[in-house]
């Protein structure tokens, strides 16, 4: 449904007299299959939004190619526009208009006739549970309601693909869960959904497949389960004081069951082991034997954050 090859974009920024070129996206290759929820996971500034805006024809790539729903992004952006929906991060509704007006206008901008536009607006209001507020001004809506209007706008012309840029950022937990259901519903209706997110749980729970992005590059791609499986084994987190950490690291690094050992900045160790259940007693015994006190011990099954950490050397929560 989407295929990109070497998509690139750099921006020139000027600070004082110096001009700096920032490579926002450096050669992204992606393949998104029909009918899946595909997620772009990465920290702010990773180039997710820039990539999305390129795919949505809003900014022109500096290089590379992309085919979106069968249309060539570089040669026929107008056709791409007809086939996709795009919902921006920062909102797209006008305070003084009502949801119904926005929906009808937006449908008509896609070339849909007046009567049909009204019918579609009614259907969309109903599907997104907005009928009750349909004729109130957008400025009176809650964050979640407004976001639903925006998603409804993005799909009013029944596109094959819809791009959602951080659809749940800024929503309260309940509205977020609601939004996840809406997004799953779009997939049930046969749409391909492409979202960006910096929430690990969202990528994990919602997306069929994800690409992890960092510094303008895709560093990993696959289903959440595949990616987690790639990180073989489990992680034992040993809570230690900063003072005892080096000593413990020295002791445990030579143990056969520890495949990799990392020191946590504020004290403590991160041990990569095949099986946590058998490793934990051994760790405890070893440290006890050496007379080192530990504050805590935790077994950690791999999360997408661990995937991110192994691919980029940083935790997503920290970046």
């Amino acid at each position, binding site marked *: 449904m989407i295929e990109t090859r070497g998509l690139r974009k750099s921006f020139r920024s000027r600070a004082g007299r110096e001009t700096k070129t920032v490579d926002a996206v450096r050669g992204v290759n992606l393949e998104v299959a029909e009918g899946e929820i595909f997620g772009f996971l990465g920290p702010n500034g990773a180039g997710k939004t820039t990539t999305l805006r390129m795919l*949505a*024809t*809003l*900014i*022109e790539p500096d290089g590379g190619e992309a085919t979106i729903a069968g249309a060539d992004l570089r040669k026929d952006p*107008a056709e791409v*526009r*007809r086939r*996709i*929906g*795009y919902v*921006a991060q*920062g*909102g*797209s*509704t*006008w*305070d*003084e*208009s009502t949801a119904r*007006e926005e929906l009808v*206008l*937006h449908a*008509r*901008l*896609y*070339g849909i006739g007046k009567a049909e536009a009204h019918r579609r607006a009614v259907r969309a209001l109903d599907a997104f549970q907005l009928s009750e507020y349909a004729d109130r001004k957008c400025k009176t809506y809650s964050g979640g309601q407004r976001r639903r209007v925006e998603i409804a*706008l993005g799909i009013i*012309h029944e596109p094959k693909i819809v791009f959602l840029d951080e659809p749940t950022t800024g929503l309260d937990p309940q509205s977020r869960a609601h939004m996840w259901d809406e997004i799953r519903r779009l997939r049930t209706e046969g749409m391909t959904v492409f979202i960006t997110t910096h929430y690990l749980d969202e990528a994990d729970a919602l997306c069929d497949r994800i690409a992890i992005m960092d510094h303008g590059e895709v560093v990993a791609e696959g289903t959440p389960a595949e990616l987690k499986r790639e990180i073989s084994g489990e992680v034992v987190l040993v809570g230690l004081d900063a003072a005892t950490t080096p000593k413990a690291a020295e002791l445990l690094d030579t143990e056969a069951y520890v495949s990799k050992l990392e020191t946590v900045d504020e004290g403590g160790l991160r041990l990569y082991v095949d099986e946590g259940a058998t490793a934990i007693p051994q760790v405890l015994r070893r440290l006890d034997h050496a007379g080192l006190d530990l504050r805590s011990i935790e077994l950690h099954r791999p999360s997408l954050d661990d995937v991110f950490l192994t691919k980029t050397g940083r935790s997503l929560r920290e970046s």
Partner: protein
Amino acid sequence: MKLARDTWLIFQRQIQLLLRNPVWVFVGVFQPVMYLLLFAPLLKPALNAPTQAAAYKIFVPGLLVLLAIFGGLFQGFGLIAELRAGVIERSRVTPVSRLALLLGRSLRDVVSLIVQAVIITLLALLFDLRVFIGDLLLAYLMLALIALMTSAVSYGVALKVKSEDALAPLMNTVAQPVLLLSGILLPLTFAPGWLQGIADWNPFSWAVDGTRALFAGDLGNDKVWQGLTIVAVLAVAGVVWAARQFARSVR
């Protein structure tokens, strides 16, 4: 035709929002009305005009051109608010004509200008101003073209600078000399030669002269077609330039 349809859609929406808050049309007309009521009475003695009506024939066309210039130049502010709300970006992902995004908005500005011009004209009638309806309609055409140009330019600049803080001083800097050099408040016949020489390069000066000729009932005056041609060419240039800004990346 797609362009006409798209323009109509955008225009309709903009007019709908304007009618929801029509107070702005009247706020816009307030300043010129003040000039009409509080400044114009000084003109008969100052211009040595034979009658009050004669003074108004000189002053009212200038005032209307002033209204068209300023009304248009400050429309960019509304667009910056729309940019911020994401409405422009939302339009740009649809296949809507980029020219229509501009024209729909500029036509709304033209309509609201004409409404204001009619209000001013009607008030001026109370002060014994008399104009032939045909001449008046041609004068309105001149005003419409000016407003089309200035609002298009304002939109184009707004898309480029993207901030009210930059737009306000920029538009004021442009508007002040344009205003003073177009003989709007007082005809430039009083100006020294060098000032007239500079004013000849100001297109709005030609527009004001043309509009004055129309108000004077002097349809055959060369200044009429010259003024109309100049503003028409500039309006087309302004629209083409601004439409290109709409087509290009907008954040």
